[in-house]
């Protein structure tokens, strides 16, 4: 029996008059890695921003672990264990790496739990431990991505939304990040992965959706999508 952890139904989102999401529906099952693909401007980031509450859906409904979250504010959604790592990482430059991680645990009340999670993050990303007292702005792009992901794991994370974690990274770094995603998933975190790098994402994922101008145009098992050259050519520009 598989459990649906995230369910999106007929969601529409606007930026002023721009109709960015035109009624999309999909679901994510607990324990899966699901990837959301699409070209620039397709609406991938908007989908994630609508789920985490940064943008408000104008129509439709979103539920997480059986609870309706469509009109909840981001901080309430985070405290339920739905964590969004945004496009461009958005780490706090000017604060130390350790402080960045602590902020990730803002919703935790228990100090020992905070310490335990920080150790886990340091074990996943040893470079963060080495530089913990340094300004986060001094990290390289790949290290910033590690910090953004580490920060998202500082709480009781059940579903992780990742927006283009491989953006701007050297190929070996992309591999490293993908490995980490796989490991987190094995540790029990469900993952919704937005990627432009369709090949890397489909290799990892169980299931995939392709977005085009605010609508889902293709969906299927990742293995199937991977083999279907026409899909990759038509929608993913490769």
């Amino acid at each position: 029996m598989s459990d649906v952890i995230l369910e999106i139904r007929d969601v529409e989102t606007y930026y002023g008059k721009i109709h960015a999401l035109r009624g999309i529906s999909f679901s994510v099952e607990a324990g899966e890695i699901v990837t959301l693909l699409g070209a620039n401007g397709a609406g991938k980031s908007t989908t994630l921003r609508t789920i985490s509450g940064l943008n408000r859906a104008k129509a439709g409904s979103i539920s997480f672990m059986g609870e309706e979250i469509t009109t909840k504010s981001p901080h309430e959604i985070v405290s339920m264990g739905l964590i969004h790592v945004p496009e461009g990482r958005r780490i706090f430059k000017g604060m130390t790496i350790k402080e960045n991680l602590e902020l990730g645990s803002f919703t935790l009340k228990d100090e020992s739990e905070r310490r335990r999670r920080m150790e886990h993050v340091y074990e996943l990303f040893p470079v963060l431990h080495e530089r913990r007292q340094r300004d986060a702005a001094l990290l390289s792009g790949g290290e910033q991505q590690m910090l953004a992901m580490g920060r998202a794991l500082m709480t009781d994370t059940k579903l992780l939304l990742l927006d283009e974690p491989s953006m701007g990274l050297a190929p070996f770094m992309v591999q490293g990040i993908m490995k980490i995603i796989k490991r987190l998933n094995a540790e029990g975190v469900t993952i919704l992965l937005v990627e432009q790098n369709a090949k890397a994402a489909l290799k990892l994922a169980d299931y995939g959706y392709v977005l085009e101008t605010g609508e889902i145009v293709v969906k299927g098992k990742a293995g199937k999508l991977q083999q279907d050259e026409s899909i990759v050519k038509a929608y993913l520009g490769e």
Partner: protein
Amino acid sequence: MSTLDILLQQLANGLILGSFYALVALGYTMVYGIIKLLNFAHGDLYMCGAFIGFLFLSLVSGLLGESWGGILCSMILSMITVGLLGVLIQRVAYLPMLAAPRLSILITALAVSMVLSNGVMALTDGEYEAFSTDLGFEGLEMGNVFVTYTQIALVVSAALLMVTLFFFINRTMYGKAMRAIAIDQDACRLMGINVNKVITLTFFIGSALAAAAGVMAGVYYGSVHFFMGFVIGLKAFTAAVIGGIGSIRGAMLGGLVLGLLEAFGTQIPFIGSEWKDVFSFGILILLLVFKPTGLLGKTEIERM
């Protein structure tokens, strides 16, 4: 008095003046850091703090006297009341304007400033009120330099408040959230931070610090007046800019630097104390020309 004595005496005066400036500048800089608003009503909160402290002191003096017990109690009550007043202003006047163009909220701040100062003027008929305390005139004498215990206590209280704030900002989760919101609000939301709550807290703390400075100024000068917030508002703004607006340490440093510069400035031949405001705003202009980001400010420059 020798020149050295004069300089030492001015050092003491400068520290007192500087700690008032620093306390008020902190609120300016915290609010600017978190919502990029120059809160022109901030000096008026200092003035309200002085008056409310004056009111509470006359209420509690029967019980606690007009010495430190009564003063401390009325200062704390004034900090809480003015803190809540600051929160009310944020909720009613500023929150609805956050999405509007920057200039609109700036004009709102000017309006709030006028409402507060004119309100107090109407209530007090524009009169000076004597802030009567019972602290005596004893003090420390070092050579020809004399500092009263009251003056020492004022500087120490200001320092304690600043150390507490520094600890809060750097060591507590809410303090860290405050700094993080100044960097990236949306990212803070994704950390589970209730951004509006933290903004409210910032207004509370900034306003309470201004109120503390207001009560201290009442004790120091012996009287309060509806117009007392105007000049110190500008001075605190100057101090915040000297230190680098948005920077907490900068506000503390800027306040002290400005206080000391003013105190010593009055000793320069031909620049008597009546020129001291010209002197401090002259410094502001010079700084804006040569180092617009202030002593500890970031390189980001924004046009209002």
